[in-house]
């Protein structure tokens, strides 16, 4: 029962079922009663016709002067019978009875519509000959001038209305099943339509997670709007916290590094111990700063970033910084989008080109292309000294530095690796076949939205 849709659907189904079943029982019962009454009325009419057609004759007997018009009273064993009795003595009976007689059951006399099967069971003879369910009525009449009360009995075959009832019940069942299916379908549509805004929120949240949108924007129905508003507030709050944490880290760096700069400039250049300690402090600060930054990698809201545009901008910066180096950038396609944050991508591209520029003797070549339909590949090559095979893996380790002389924290490539891997990409080093130096390869998944 974890699904709202299932809850609504099941409860509606139970309700519909109950209603339909009781309606069908009620209707079937009403129909049966009315059929029974109509049949009963007809038998009564026949009985009264029979009574009206009976005369006391001269020899103190009863004569039926005319008979009931229905031809079924003449067909043998049709189930439609009549009989006139004086106690156990049969005075007259219908042609259809042939050689049979009803035994008179006292219980039935005077009754209007009495049913049947009990009578039948008592009347073994009749049951034997026709195996029909009969509806029998009897009436006792006293004729003036006749010594005993005379019993009139009329019966009809129940098959006639049983068939009607059955046919009605079948039709009723078909209609109600169709109605039930229709209602269930309507409920299904209603539930889905009703829950549509929730699905919309789900899609919107997915988009937010993917970085396509910043918050829930559409107006939502009255019942869902408070939820959407709260989610928006939460998102905003989250972003603020991350922003604040970053500002704090940055501020801490600032307040620590400026005094450190003062101290390092104040000491005598011969004081190696102090100078080393300051270098160490500087590196530790940078290390923790980067660590703090790494922890936020992938947690910032992502957005679609045009890698080609960003790369061109970054290369522009390096052309300024390294005017003596020949930095070339080329891209197979004008726009390539990656889902990330500007901060992370600037860090990746900045660190790698800086590295290439630092080591290149003259040339740095930066290529961007689609490696396949789902991925983007960035290739940074330089004409520097390159790296021996066994060091290529080591440079990604935290704090590893190939060269203690050039400034740096030894965290650059480690950060690149962390960012690339959180973005479900790959980074590896190889020897540049084009320029002879180091070649850094990065594969990142293209934004699918």
């Amino acid at each position, binding site marked *: 029962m974890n699904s709202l849709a299932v809850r609504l659907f099941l409860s509606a189904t139970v309700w519909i079922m109950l209603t339909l079943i009781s309606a069908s029982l009620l209707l079937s019962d009403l129909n049966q009663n009315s059929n029974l009454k109509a049949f009963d009325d007809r038998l009564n009419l026949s009985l009264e016709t029979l009574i009206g057609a009976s005369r006391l004759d001269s020899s103190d007997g009863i004569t039926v002067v005319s008979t009931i018009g229905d031809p079924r009273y003449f067909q043998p064993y049709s189930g439609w019978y009549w009989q006139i009795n004086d106690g156990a003595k049969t005075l007259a009976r219908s042609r259809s009875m042939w050689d049979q007689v009803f035994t008179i059951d006292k219980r039935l006399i005077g009754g209007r519509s009495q049913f049947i099967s009990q009578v039948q069971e008592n009347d073994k003879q009749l049951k034997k000959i026709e195996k029909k369910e009969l509806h029998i009525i009897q009436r006792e009449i006293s004729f003036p001038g006749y010594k005993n009360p005379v019993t009139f009995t009329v019966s009809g075959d129940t098959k006639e209305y049983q068939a009607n009832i059955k046919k009605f019940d079948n039709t009723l069942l078909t209609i109600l099943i169709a109605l039930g299916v229709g209602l269930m379908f309507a409920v299904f549509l209603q539930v889905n339509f009703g829950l549509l805004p929730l699905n919309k929120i789900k899609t919107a949240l997915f988009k937010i997670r993917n970085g396509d949108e910043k918050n829930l924007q559409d107006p939502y129905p009255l019942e869902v709007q408070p939820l959407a508003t709260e989610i928006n507030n939460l998102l905003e709050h989250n972003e603020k916290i991350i922003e604040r944490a970053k500002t704090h880290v*940055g*501020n801490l*760096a*600032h307040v*620590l*590094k*400026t*005094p*450190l*700069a*003062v*101290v*390092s*400039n*104040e000491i005598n250049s011969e004081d190696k111990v102090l100078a080393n300690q*300051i270098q160490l402090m*500087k590196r530790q600060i*940078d290390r923790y*700063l*980067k660590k703090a*930054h790494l922890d936020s990698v992938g947690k910032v809201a992502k957005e679609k970033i045009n890698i080609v545009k960003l790369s061109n*901008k*970054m290369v*522009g*910066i390096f052309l*300024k*910084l390294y*005017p*003596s180096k020949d930095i070339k950038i080329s891209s197979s396609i004008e726009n390539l989008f990656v889902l990330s944050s*500007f*901060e992370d991508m*600037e*860090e990746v*591209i*900045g*660190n790698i080109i800086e590295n290439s520029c630092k080591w290149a003797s003259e040339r740095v070549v930066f290529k961007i292309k689609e490696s396949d339909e789902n991925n983007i590949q960035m290739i940074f090559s330089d004409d520097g000294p390159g790296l021996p095979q066994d060091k290529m893996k080591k440079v990604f380790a935290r704090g590893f530095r190939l060269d203690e002389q050039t*400034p740096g*924290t030894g965290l650059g490539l480690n950060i690149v690796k962390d960012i690339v891997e959180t973005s479900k990409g790959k980074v590896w080093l190889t020897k540049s076949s084009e320029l002879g130096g180091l070649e850094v390869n990065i594969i990142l998944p293209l934004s699918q939205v």
Partner: protein
Amino acid sequence: MRILVIEDDPNLNKQIKTSLEDSGYSVDFAVDGEEGHFLGDTEPYDAVILDLGLPKVDGITVLERWRKEKKNFPVLILTARNQWSDKVSGFDAGADDYVTKPFQMEELLARLRALIRRSAGHATSDIECGPLKIDTKSNKVFLNGTKLKLTSHEYKIIEYFLHHQDKVISRTELVEHIYDQDFDRDSNTIEVFIGRLRKKMGMNLIKTERGHGYRLSLDQE
């Protein structure tokens, strides 16, 4: 060469100022963004060292304002943050180079020298004009390979001329770029310095453009 240093930490500010002055620059300084922006707006500097974390107005904003006002002196930013996103926003605002704190003073000086050279269109640390050559790294001037003995003011003037060869430079411009703002300026002293320089070089490389100023050129009049 006249440099503006904007750094809110008074100690660091003083250290930078002293080191720059020792290297032959005239230095003005400010300790907040507002004052710094005003100075950069009103005085002609050859380069600016700008800290990004400043009180009153932050460094990025100061830089953006200058660039909007078409001030195109080279700007070197000092940042405590080592992330590329901070550097990128600095470059977006119009910075030309950056140095991250804490730094070695030698590194800052080297970057500043390179920046000034680059903005004047020179690729190497040596700038030449015929027989005249200046090594901006060691603050030495050579004539036909022989080192000239110059006072600091004379050096500042010849350095400015070498960075702006074939350009007419007025006396006021020279004053503005050679003295910091606290100096008692007297444009007549310029004439004295030029005269001494001409004497020391023994040849008339610095031409007088009557009514306009001076020009460093190899042309024969």
